[in-house]
């Protein structure tokens, strides 16, 4: 079992390895945002923020915040040299038009078909989809970054039971237990966390898992 306090870091670090030089990436609120901290310095990734710019930079120092410059979570951020601002129609033209190479989002549930549910729990929590539906449909690669289970219950299911964010759009699931690819033949475990057994992963997963013939140990 992995130290709980490291779970988020493990996931963020592993997701960060998915990007290549020049990729345009949109990181969701929460854990996905932390991915930015672990991107290889030799890899230039351009972060897109759906509220209207590219070139999202780190959090400003206290006292140096610009009231006009926030990320899609409303947090003060910076814009890197060479960044560009645009309106919401252009922002989502970029997203829906396939100009974002990868989007990283959290999930409530994800399933064998690559269906994703991450925007509401009927009767309980209905924040709205924000930009998530467009991101999941439009990005070339959809990476779900999440803890493998929620209070011990699997989140990787045979079929999502919550209202979907999008159908059949997820490409990769990264958790603290492993890396799972969504293929036309279902979910394939490609990498497994150190000190974790395939049986442990299977036990924490409701969906059918195929084990890749060249299963690797997750680099973290």
């Amino acid at each position: 079992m992995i130290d709980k306090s490291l779970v988020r870091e493990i996931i963020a670090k592993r997701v960060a390895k998915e990007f290549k030089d020049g990729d345009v990436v949109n990181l969701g609120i929460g854990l996905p945002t932390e991915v930015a901290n672990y991107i290889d310095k030799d890899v230039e990734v351009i972060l897109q923020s759906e509220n209207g710019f590219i070139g999202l930079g780190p959090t400003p120092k206290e006292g140096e915040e610009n009231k006009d410059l926030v990320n899609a979570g409303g947090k003060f951020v910076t814009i890197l040299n060479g960044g560009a601002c645009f309106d919401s129609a252009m922002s989502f033209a970029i997203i829906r038009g396939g100009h974002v190479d990868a989007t990283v989002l959290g999930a409530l549930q994800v399933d064998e078909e690559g269906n994703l549910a991450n925007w509401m729990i009927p009767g309980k929590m209905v924040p709205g989809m924000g930009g998530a539906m467009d991101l999941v449909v439009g990005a070339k690669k959809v990476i779900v970054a999440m803890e493998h289970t929620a209070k011990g219950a699997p989140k990787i299911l045979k079929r999502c039971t919550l209202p979907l964010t999008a159908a059949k759009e997820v490409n990769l699931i990264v958790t603290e237990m492993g890396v799972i690819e969504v293929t036309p033949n279902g979910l394939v475990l490609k990498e497994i966390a150190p000190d974790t057994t395939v049986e442990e992963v299977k036990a924490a997963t409701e969906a059918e898992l195929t084990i890749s013939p060249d299963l690797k140990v997750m680099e973290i």
Partner: protein
Amino acid sequence: MNKLKILNEIMEHIKDGQTIMFGGFLGVGTAEKIVDAIVEKGVKDLTIICNDTGFVDKGVGKLVVNKQVKKVITSHIGTNPETGRQMNAGEIEVELVPQGTLAERIRAYGAGLGGVLTPTGLGTVVAEGKQVIEIDGKNYLLEKPLKADVAILKGSKVDKKGNIWYSKTTRNFNPIMAMSADVVIVEAEELVEVGEIEPENVATPHIFVDYILKGGEV
């Protein structure tokens, strides 16, 4: 034509039952002085169109808290718990729209298009009751244009003709809402002389703007 008005004159255009678009993303790029004046005026039964319902004390959220909103068409209400509470209590109607679809529906009206053909929302509750159109073997949802009686914008620099330049992430929905309402009002953080914004750097051309409020920094 003098578009520059004082707050009282601006407020004459805000009435019970109107549909009003508000620029802004979590309150950034929202005309706070005009929102405050609408709270003070107390007009009721508004339908508001906005990216999100802001916070209880920032952006259009203040209108929700003050129970002036009958219906909201938006992509996100999570940062303003009062919207969710009123929704669950049946006090407000909430139409949730994917953010990109919301932007494109607003643009469609302003651009004279009949609707938007988007893949976003297919296979989800968003598609319920909507027409699906197949084009070259792929399915698209037909989403209808959105218009408003009034659009309320926030401009970082506004010249006296009404040309607008937006700083950083304040642009968001403002330029498209400028195209899609009968009456368009802009709150100017900084009012500048005509010519101070280069023609190439104007984000909202003055022909869309009816009235300007000299707002100052909030």
